[in-house]
């Protein structure tokens, strides 16, 4: 009697889910079985001879266990405990013991109860049952309130802005607003895997959380885009500027002991996207920096979708260019890539005439054409956002902006994104800009576009060279017959001719010579070098060769040219090379001239 477990003790425990100091205290003594450490605590099975339940002792009692006061197969009296469900296993429960005391040291063996049928025993349990019923009702009433209060205490939520590395325990309630892919890595410390998520709380503050190895494998499937979670027991450190992607001084690391619990009743919680806009005229300072910036502007034009071949894997990626303007009266071209180009980009094309306001989050700033912006995978585009900035910008545009002549931030001229060959317009120069500056192109080649007439092609210049049909390099005539290619190290019976020639061009400010190679010269002359050579070789009254050259003379083209310096007889001279030739689009050219005329009238 002195050293025995309470009959049906575990059943009593299950019937009374929690017990604290204020409760009426039934006598519950259980045997400790399978005692073993788990982390900084000890777990065991609580045994009453008939039933067992998993239990955990608090860390404060570890010293009692070590000193032998509490022993495996010993008896303890329960003073305070709570019973919880084991997550994922709805039928199993476990007991968290807060306070207990040792009753007896280890017994010889695990207690197993035997039931004896006798009249006397039958009467006695009936009486005890009635008494327990009264206690049970009271305890149940208290028990109903305690878990809710405890739950509220447990779920006290910290805003993200208040977190810092020196804080104790905290819990955040956040939505997953971005989820990266699981990546494997290999470094000096071995192989592993990593992924990260972007978390946003109710106030819109964001933080990035990173998980490695075991934690990554544990939580990768747990986190779903757009869902809300309670997260605690992560660690914080200063954000690495090199990889900064969200605006927070800290970043979070979760390990396998971190707690992540989905808040399933939180579907209505939609975090507001928080923007940190940079005016268009200030974008220059961000060029080629690692910062991602947000921009808001009025859509001026939207280009058709283009396909760009990616260099590293030869895949075709859709791209669309849009032009934005804001109150600074500057415009900037934003390249939308992938889904943004085909999805929201198509929406913008359909509504471009209404000049909607759009806000874009997380753009990369590049130096193409001076200043340009590109979306990345995490970029977010909002059309006509409900925000004070958008309202203000729309008012400015309706009152003043639509009449103002804008200028591109990168080049001082409006982009004509609606024209197919945008690059042919944004850096347009007169010939005098080049010829009046002999040192142009000295440091490195510079590129321009120019529109000019061909005023002279010298008929007696050598216009072509004999080229290898395989590699296009120059070949030499072999001794016996055929042609030898030094680069391919082989002889061929045939070769092709390729242009290398000079043409004189003129515009309203001057004239100059241009060097043209095969592809560009074919567009200027209108036929291949082989064909022109055939014409030249013809004998007779008619000289088609001369005719071909005269037809090419006094034609006008849009040239893409590069200017560089070349040394010849120890003297430096400018060398202007044609990099592209396009036919003239007179309608586009007229619009460009009118833009410039308007701009100069405005500046008077």
């Amino acid at each position, binding site marked *: 009697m002195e050293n025995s477990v309470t009959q049906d003790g575990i059943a009593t425990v299950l019937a009374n889910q929690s017990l604290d100091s204020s409760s009426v205290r039934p006598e519950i003594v259980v045997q400790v079985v399978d005692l073993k450490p788990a982390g900084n605590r000890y777990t065991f099975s609580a045994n009453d001879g008939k039933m067992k339940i998993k239990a955990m002792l608090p860390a404060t009692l570890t010293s009692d266990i070590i000193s032998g006061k509490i022993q495996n197969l010993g008896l303890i009296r329960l003073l305070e405990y709570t019973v919880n469900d084991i997550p994922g296993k709805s039928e199993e429960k476990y007991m968290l013991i807060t306070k207990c005391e040792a009753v007896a040291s280890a017994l010889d063996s695990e207690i197993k109860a035997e039931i004896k049928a006798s009249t006397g025993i039958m009467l006695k349990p009936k009486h005890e049952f009635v008494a327990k019923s009264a206690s049970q009702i009271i305890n149940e009433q208290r028990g109903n309130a305690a878990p809710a209060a405890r739950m509220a205490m447990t779920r006290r939520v910290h805003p993200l802005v208040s977190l810092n590395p020196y804080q104790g325990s905290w819990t955040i309630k956040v939505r997953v607003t971005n989820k990266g892919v699981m990546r494997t890595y290999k470094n000096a410390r071995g192989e592993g895997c990593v992924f990260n998520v972007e978390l946003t709380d109710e106030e819109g503050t964001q933080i990035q959380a990173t998980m490695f190895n075991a934690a990554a494998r544990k939580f990768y499937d747990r986190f779903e885009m757009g869902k809300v979670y309670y997260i605690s027991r992560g660690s914080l450190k200063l954000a690495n500027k090199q990889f900064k992607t969200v605006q927070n001084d800290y970043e979070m690391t979760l390990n396998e002991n971190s707690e992540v619990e989905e808040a399933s009743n939180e579907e209505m919680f939609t975090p507001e996207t928080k923007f940190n806009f940079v005016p268009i005229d200030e974008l220059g300072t961000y060029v080629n920096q690692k910062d991602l910036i947000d921009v808001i502007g009025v859509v001026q034009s939207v280009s058709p979708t283009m396909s760009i071949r990616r260099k590293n894997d030869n895949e075709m990626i859709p791209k669309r260019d849009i032009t934005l303007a804001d109150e600074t009266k500057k415009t900037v071209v934003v390249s939308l890539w992938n889904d943004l180009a085909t999805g929201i980009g198509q929406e913008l094309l359909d509504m471009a005439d209404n000049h909607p306001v759009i806000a874009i989050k997380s753009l990369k700033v590049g130096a193409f054409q001076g200043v340009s912006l590109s979306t990345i995978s995490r970029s977010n585009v909002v059309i006509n956002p409900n925000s004070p900035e958008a309202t203000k910008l729309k008012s400015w545009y309706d009152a003043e902006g639509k009449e103002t002549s804008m200028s591109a931030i990168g080049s001082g*001229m409006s982009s004509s994104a609606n024209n197919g060959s945008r690059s042919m317009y944004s850096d347009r120069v*007169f010939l005098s*800009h080049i010829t009046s500056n002999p040192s142009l192109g000295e440091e490195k080649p510079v590129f321009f576009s120019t529109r000019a007439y061909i005023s002279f092609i010298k008929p007696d*210049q050598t216009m072509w*060279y004999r080229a290898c049909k395989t590699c296009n390099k120059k070949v030499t005539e072999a001794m016996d017959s055929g042609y030898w290619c030094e680069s391919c190290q082989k002889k061929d019976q045939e070769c092709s001719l390729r242009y*290398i020639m000079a043409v004189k061009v003129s515009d309203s400010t*001057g004239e100059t010579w241009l060097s043209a190679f095969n592809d560009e010269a074919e567009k200027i002359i209108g036929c291949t070098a082989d064909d022109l050579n055939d014409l030249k070789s013809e004998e007779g009254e008619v000289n088609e060769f001369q005719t071909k050259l005269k037809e090419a003379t006094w034609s006008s083209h849009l040239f893409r040219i590069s200017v560089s310096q070349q040394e010849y007889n120890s003297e430096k001279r400018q060398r202007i090379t044609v990099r592209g030739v396009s036919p003239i689009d007179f309608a586009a050219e007229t619009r460009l001239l009118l833009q*410039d005329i308007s701009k*100069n009238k405005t500046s008077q």
Partner: protein
Amino acid sequence: MYGGDFDGNAAFAGGGFMPSQATTQAHESSSSLKNRDVRTLLPLTLKQLSSASTTGESNFSIDGVDIKTVVIVGRISRMENRITQVDFVVDDGTGWVDCVRWCHARQETEEMEAVKLGMYVRLHGHLKIFQGKRSVNVFSVRPVTDFNEIVHHFTECMYVHMYNTKLRGGSITQDTATPRPQMPYSTMPTPAKPYQTGPSNQFPNQFNDSMHGVKQTVLNYLNQPMHIVSEAGVHCDIIARELRIPLLQVKEALEQLSNDGCIYSTLDETCFKSTANA
């Protein structure tokens, strides 16, 4: 890009390209010496062409720029075929001009055969006085196939006129720094360009028409950096002597430029300074 397609050294070793390069050298040397000798290709309306000032049989200028080769877009309103040439009249709505196309080669004859009475054409040629009248010696006549070209031509005449009368001389203020690469279409001439203008030897018969040229020359002179930094400005006698323009014309030009706000007087009524950077 072209490095892979083409071995430059091998091509140069083969010769052929060098003579053209030598020609380029000679041309570039001459082009940097005198701005006014640069051979330009001016788009003009026929009203501009008929009102251009002249100092001789083949010396015309407009907006202070010498006319060398002209581009004209208009409709052929009269056409007469002769044995060695085709005489025709081109009308663009602002005026008309006599044109002559000499046909020595078959290509020239074929080109003219493609041109019909009433057709819109674009022509390049040289302006001269022939038998007491202005006429264009035509190098090339091409039918207009894209009628946007007509509107474009008129727009470009306006643009080039604006460029030569305002931007080239009057907007140095915006471009005193060294021009950057990637300059836009309306790029300003480099500061070196205006004061490379040589002295004008024109003694115009039509005084009023030529005043604009004199004004432009004087303004370019005053816009030179050394005169801009000078506190006292430049005396009108020095201007006349340096530019070899009669003093009376210089004074007239200075008065008009002062009224326009391009220059202002400094120590007294005879010394002037440009308002650029003022």
